[in-house]
């Protein structure tokens, strides 16, 4: 479904990614683990088109997307929940979701019957968003913001969801809820590429995983195999 080939991305003057190859099959959860500054977020931003690779190619469903602008890539069916959630603080919860549906709504109006079902789905998944519909995004707690961020990304009905550190800085009860949500979304057919520092939880969830170190992929394989690999245990699982 998604194929990254020989990707080199600079972040400012720093060579953040030094030639990586990643593929994601339809229906999979693939996780990208590694320490801070390994280039995981840069990889997601490169897929989304915010950062551009110097070489190589990215294809999504057989189509080259690495020269497209970010908004075109969203329209192709790739949605990202970036690190830090990036809720629009001065837009209401509802308006945040409306912006998520930007590519799906008609030119003039943000309401339509088709979209209504999508709002209902998101509200069903996260009832708290319905309660806080008219509140400003900035007034939500961290966990609620993460739910809003995921809900917002789902509004464009993506085929592939990129999640960057969804559990970072959340209270333990929310972490469990977020991982459960990821599993449920995948069960409903959504393909997911997950970046996580919480390597144990991510590897348990994922079908396959990649380990990144200073801009390179150093290991890849099935989630469960990586979970039991001695060097991974030592470096990322603290055993």
């Amino acid at each position, binding site marked *: 479904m998604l194929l990254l080939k020989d990707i080199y991305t600079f972040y400012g003057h720093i060579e953040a990614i030094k030639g990586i190859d990643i593929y994601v099959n339809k229906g999979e959860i693939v996780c990208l683990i590694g320490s801070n500054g390994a280039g995981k977020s840069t990889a997601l931003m490169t897929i989304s088109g915010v950062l551009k690779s110097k070489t190589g190619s990215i294809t999504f469903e057989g189509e080259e997307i690495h020269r497209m602008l970010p908004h075109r890539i969203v*329209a192709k069916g790739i949605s990202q929940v970036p690190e830090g959630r990036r809720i629009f603080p*001065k*837009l209401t919860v509802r*308006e945040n979701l409306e912006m998520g549906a930007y590519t799906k709504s008609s030119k003039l109006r943000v309401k339509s019957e088709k979209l209504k079902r999508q709002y209902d789905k998101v509200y069903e998944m996260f009832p708290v968003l319905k309660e806080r519909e008219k509140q400003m995004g900035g007034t939500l707690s961290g966990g609620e913001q993460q739910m809003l961020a995921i809900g917002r990304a789902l509004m464009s009905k993506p085929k592939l969801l990129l999640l960057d550190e969804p559990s970072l800085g959340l209270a333990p009860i929310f972490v469990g809820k977020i991982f459960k949500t990821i599993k449920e979304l995948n069960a409903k057919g959504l393909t997911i590429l997950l970046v996580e520092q919480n390597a144990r939880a991510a590897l348990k969830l994922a079908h396959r995983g990649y380990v990144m170190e200073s801009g390179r992929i150093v290991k890849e394989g099935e989630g469960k195999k990586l979970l039991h690999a001695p060097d991974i245990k030592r470096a990322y699982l603290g055993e």
Partner: protein
Amino acid sequence: MFFQQILNGVTVGGVYALIALGYTMVYGILELINFAHGEIYMIGAYLGIIFIGIFTVIGLTQYSIPLAILLSFILSALFCSAYGFTIEKLAYKPLRKAPRLSPLISAIGVSIFLQNYVMLTQGATDKVFPHILETTKIEFFNLTITTLQVFIIITSLLLTGLLHLYVMKTKTGKAMRAVAQDKVMASLLGINIDRIISVTFIIGSGLAAVAGMMVAMYYGLVNYSIGYIAGIKAFAAAVLGGIGSIPGAMLGGFILGIVESLAASYLSSEYKDAYAFVILIIILLIKPRGLLGKSQ
């Protein structure tokens, strides 16, 4: 006398407010002070004269003067929108990733270019706005207000209100607010940033054109250099109200107009252009982000 000056101030204030909206919208989205914006207002005034002239030649003014004026407003706004759109594409967009000072210098360059361009094509002397509309004076409680003043006040309030509704309620308006808050996130949701920025310039320039033509009708004279001082004052109005805020721009415009007209009659009219900045300095000392500015 006092209330008369307030009425006059509100009239001028409405014009400042319309220009200030363009500054505040562009700043809200790009954090750029678009110094060429005052020149758009000046071009709007000239275009008003040109279109009224054309309509006089083809005989439309004989048929219906209000229609000729309305069409001139619309055409002038459309042409100025095209100017604004083109300026952004040529002078600011290529510098979007450059340090913040670069587009600012580019804006000053565009401003100087447009002034000289109009001076060369239209001449350096004042142009007269054709006196085709008879304004009647309305008297009440010892106050005099002309129909033109009423027209200016209502138009500026109406356009500000419409803009506010547009930004709060429509899809593109909401996207403008989203882009102003976080450009990268907005693009990750499928919002075409370039399109939103273009829309911002188109709307702001159209409003400036309306302001320019209203001033040309009000004072009757237009000069290639009017954009400079009006632009700086409208910018002061935008900062006064809180740059980035649409109601703020309107409030700032009206306060500036009223203060200016009161001070000119009670203190000294020689310093008329300086009062705007005295007020600006006082308010910014008390409220550094302006009256309705976003606290961070």
